[in-house]
């Protein structure tokens, strides 16, 4: 548990279990939260080979580990996924899934029925190249983090181009392979400027407001930030992907908390272990936080060796009950924390 003067951040529980199909995730990269605690978890799956395509899907479940179902599959036909990158829900419950290989946005009904798709490859206005994230602004327009075009673009829900900003570079307002973005309640836009190791903030119109983060693994430093979220109190939650952690910045810019991952076994995982008692017994007797032999990228190696740690956090989401959802992509789960004021 981490406490600041005004807020406390504590681990709550883990949702998920490694599963190619059905109740579980396989390389989840993003989620979006619907009404009633519903989570739509987007699974990127494995390599794009025959037999692995069906791993790519949306798993629908709840924050308290209820399993509702799944929809979607890999492929290049309408509504299918190749490199699904992000999922977002509009005010009418429709779900939007971006794909950074097929260069498009698929639109689905709340039940996963394919409705339409839009997107055109290229680097001209309104064209996209590896859309890394999509997020709805308060006015209902859709913002797209256009990864390989190093810019942010705004569209209507039907894909009509409304404008955009940014270019390749490291100056204020420029980007290097941006990953996720987030809007606050006023429509200000925050971007995880991934290969520049920083977060940038913009007005709703795209005017540069500020930036923070420098390269490194010290407190407040960033290494390839992947995602971020902003709460109503002004706290900013950054998935510090290359450092395998989440840093929480207070409204004054100070680091309020650093989360490294505290995962426990979900009820789905417990069901598996109960069905495999010899594995369960050996697991109970094992030291699941062994000393790791570091060699190069010690944060990643530690995450690969210590199961509870984040490994490849690719998305941070918040609900209106103070819960923080962190998609733990290489561990096939979502770790949930709780903020208490």
């Amino acid at each position, binding site marked *: 548990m981490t406490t600041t003067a005004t807020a406390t951040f504590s681990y709550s529980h883990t949702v998920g279990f*490694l599963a190619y199909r059905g109740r579980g995730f396989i390389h989840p990269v993003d989620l979006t939260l619907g009404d009633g605690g519903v989570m739509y978890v987007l699974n990127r799956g*494995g390599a794009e080979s025959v037999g692995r395509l069906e791993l790519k899907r949306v798993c629908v479940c709840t924050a308290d580990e209820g399993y509702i179902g799944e929809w979607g599959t890999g492929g290049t036909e309408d509504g299918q996924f190749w490199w699904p990158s992000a999922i977002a829900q509009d005010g009418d419950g429709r779900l939007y899934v971006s794909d950074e290989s097929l260069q498009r946005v698929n639109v689905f009904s709340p039940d996963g029925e394919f409705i339409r798709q839009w997107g055109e490859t290229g680097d001209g206005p309104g064209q996209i190249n590896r859309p890394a994230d999509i997020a709805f602004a308060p006015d209902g327009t859709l913002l797209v983090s256009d990864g390989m075009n190093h810019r942010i673009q705004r569209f209507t829900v039907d894909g009509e181009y409304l404008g955009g900003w940014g270019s390749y570079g490291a100056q204020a307002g420029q980007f290097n392979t941006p990953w996720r973005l987030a809007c606050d309640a006023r429509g200000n836009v925050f971007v995880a400027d991934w290969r520049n190791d920083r977060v940038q903030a913009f007005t709703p119109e795209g005017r540069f407001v500020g930036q923070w983060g420098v390269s490194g693994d010290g407190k407040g430093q960033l290494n*390839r930030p992947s995602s971020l979220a902003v709460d109503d109190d002004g706290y900013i939650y950054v998935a510090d992907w290359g450092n395998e952690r989440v840093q929480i910045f207070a409204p004054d810019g100070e680091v309020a908390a650093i989360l490294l991952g505290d995962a426990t076994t979900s009820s789905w995982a417990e069901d598996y272990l109960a069905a495999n008692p010899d*594995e369960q017994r050996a697991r109970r*007797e*094992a030291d699941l936080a062994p000393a790791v032999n570091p060699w190069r990228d010690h944060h990643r190696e530690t995450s690969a060796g210590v*199961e509870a740690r984040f490994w490849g956090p690719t998305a941070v989401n918040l609900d209106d009950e103070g819960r923080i959802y962190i998609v733990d992509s290489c561990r*096939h789960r979502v770790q949930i924390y709780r903020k208490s004021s």
Partner: protein
Amino acid sequence: MTLTGNPPLGAARIALADNASIRAAHLLRRAGFTPTRAEIDRAVERGYEATVDELLHPEARPDLEIEDLIRRYHVDQNSLMLLESSQGYWMYRIINSQRPLEEKMALFWHGLFATAYGKLNHAKAVVNQTHTFRRHGLGKFADILVELSRDPAMIFWLDNKDNHRDSPNENYGRELLELFSMGIGNYTEADVKAAARAFTGWTIDNTEYMSIRASRDSFWPYGRIDWQFRYREDDHDDTEKTFLGHTGPLSGHDVIDIIVQQPATAHYIAGKLYNFFVSDRPDEEAIGIMADEFIRTDGDIRAVMRRMFLSDFFADEAVRLGRVKSPAELVGGTARLAGSHQSPEWTISNLAMDVNFMGQEILNPPTVEGWHTGMEWIDTGNLVERINAAGAEMRDTARPGVRAIIERVKTRGNRLEPRPLAEACLDAMGMFEVSDGTMNSLVALAAPWGEVRFDRDDTVACAEERVVEMLQLIVASREYQLA
């Protein structure tokens, strides 16, 4: 097509470049993966010996600069949970590393210390082992053996986790001597038992849990967990042992030090390096020179490699284009030449599958003896695979490497007759020696085209397609299948 014969190109070898370029191309093919023409030019400009020294010090160049991009776009290559994802990751390294000899050494040691996914069910553990080869592969052989003995994948692969003070398991001790250092006939059964006892206590954490997971291929609940080396002193047999004439409470480190001092080790490792880097056909005199260097430098692999690259036997025309490229060399090298996969593309797994289909499942060798190399890479079926895969890589005129070749061809003239066109294409690919038979085939391909013209807007696209057709026939040639 036949790949046999010694020398492979026979007396009809046609030289298309000066000796310095031919020698540089030979060095870069052996120390790396199919150099581009620009890389050959740079090596010529730098000088042969300076190039050798640069290759031998990979640490002076940056590590893989797209590592972060690979992990981002291929989340499966971040977790390295699946075998095919891990194979794709290695293909990226072969194609994009600025440290070609580091990658080649990793492939060499992977073939010699062959550790397979099939038993481990843990791809990242094998990838981690190849990283160990990258870090130590040009270092002292004693250090390599220490790292190998500490390597969790090896400990699992050859059952050293089951090698206990009170119940030794000889598997690792035996292969350490037989396959990894000295070769059969240079030690006794008693030496095997002593070596095994010396390595008792060299194990991994959570042995039972990890063994259960591996045996049932369980990646539940949350994916693979990296194995960690652990030395358990309380499980180590520290009593007196006699190993190769040395007696004392020998440890694993002591055994390795004794192994490295053996002339048999020097000869065995020299022979393996010679076979991989020089020729499929053993040359005892050359191997002896390399073994002497091994002994003189106390097993310094970098020094042995330097001696080899600078030797007359390495420069000998008879060994040039005398080795069959392994599938990983062929596929990775052709992708390098074509300039494909310089940034993450999902098709990387197709390249890895091509290598598999040709008989080399990297990270999953067939046995602890590794792969049978040389002519055994070639049979009727996989020769077709080799030609098709290489041809497919050269098909796209937009690929930066193919583009560079086309632009270089154009510098030879705006209008090229069949023979000059064939020569220009070979030159632009860094293929400076071909048989007259191959040359005749290339000229025959171009004969119906007559003059290929780059000087008119309405013929450029067609001319570039002609070049690509020529490149595809060149990569199907006997010479291209060899290194």
